[in-house]
């Protein structure tokens, strides 16, 4: 098991963080790379993929990326489009 396979934050939490092929970011704790992060292509939420977390994520074939799995993100509404609509006042809330 690699050091990056285990993420321990402050000793209070311990879980297996997953390395992914195309991460959106990385978590570095005390100078050590511990985990990758992913970003939802629909709402922009960032999370650490964890093996066996039980959380159901999604994939959007149109955007070609992962979604956070929330009900609102099941429909394809790309984040860039969401931003454009929000800035033009067509969308009231940016999640």
């Amino acid at each position, binding site marked *: 098991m690699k050091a990056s396979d285990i993420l321990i*934050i402050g000793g209070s939490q311990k879980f297996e963080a997953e390395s992914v092929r195309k991460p959106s970011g990385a978590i570095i704790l005390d100078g050590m790379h511990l985990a990758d992060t992913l970003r939802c292509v629909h709402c922009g939420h960032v999370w650490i993929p964890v093996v066996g977390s039980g959380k159901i994520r999604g994939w959007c074939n149109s955007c070609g990326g992962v979604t956070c799995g929330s009900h609102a993100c099941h429909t394809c509404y790309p984040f860039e489009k969401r931003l454009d609509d929000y800035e033009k006042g067509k969308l009231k809330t940016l999640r």
Partner: protein
Amino acid sequence: MRRYAADGQTAAGTNLTIAEVVAATTTRGRIYDLIIGSDASPADIATEFNIIRGTVSGTPTTTVTPRALDPADPASLLSLEVGTFTGQTKTSSTSLMNIALNQRATFRWVAVPDGEIIVPATSDNWVGLESIASGGTPNINVSFYWQE
């Protein structure tokens, strides 16, 4: 893309904003690096943070002038606000990232290109670091790096 950095510090607490990057109407901000630590005396205090959005930045204790990473670049259009806020509006249920951290640890999140957290080009909108809950009130230091 021009890159800027700004940092600040505020005591942790319950649903307290530590710092917020406030939008400009002419350009989007792309937060690509975030560093959280504490300069308080070392102690085992757990704090939960969220990165959240808001629509009214409110009045902070301090407004920090961001520094351009390239000295040839013009002044930043976005700004960083730090401290105790009044009149702030947070967008509910918009945790962009959740972080649980021991005070002894220094946390850093770095985005790959196009993986940044985006601040919309909408007046007074912001993206900030929120202390959701904490076992104490240690000083929390945060540094934001963003592109414009």
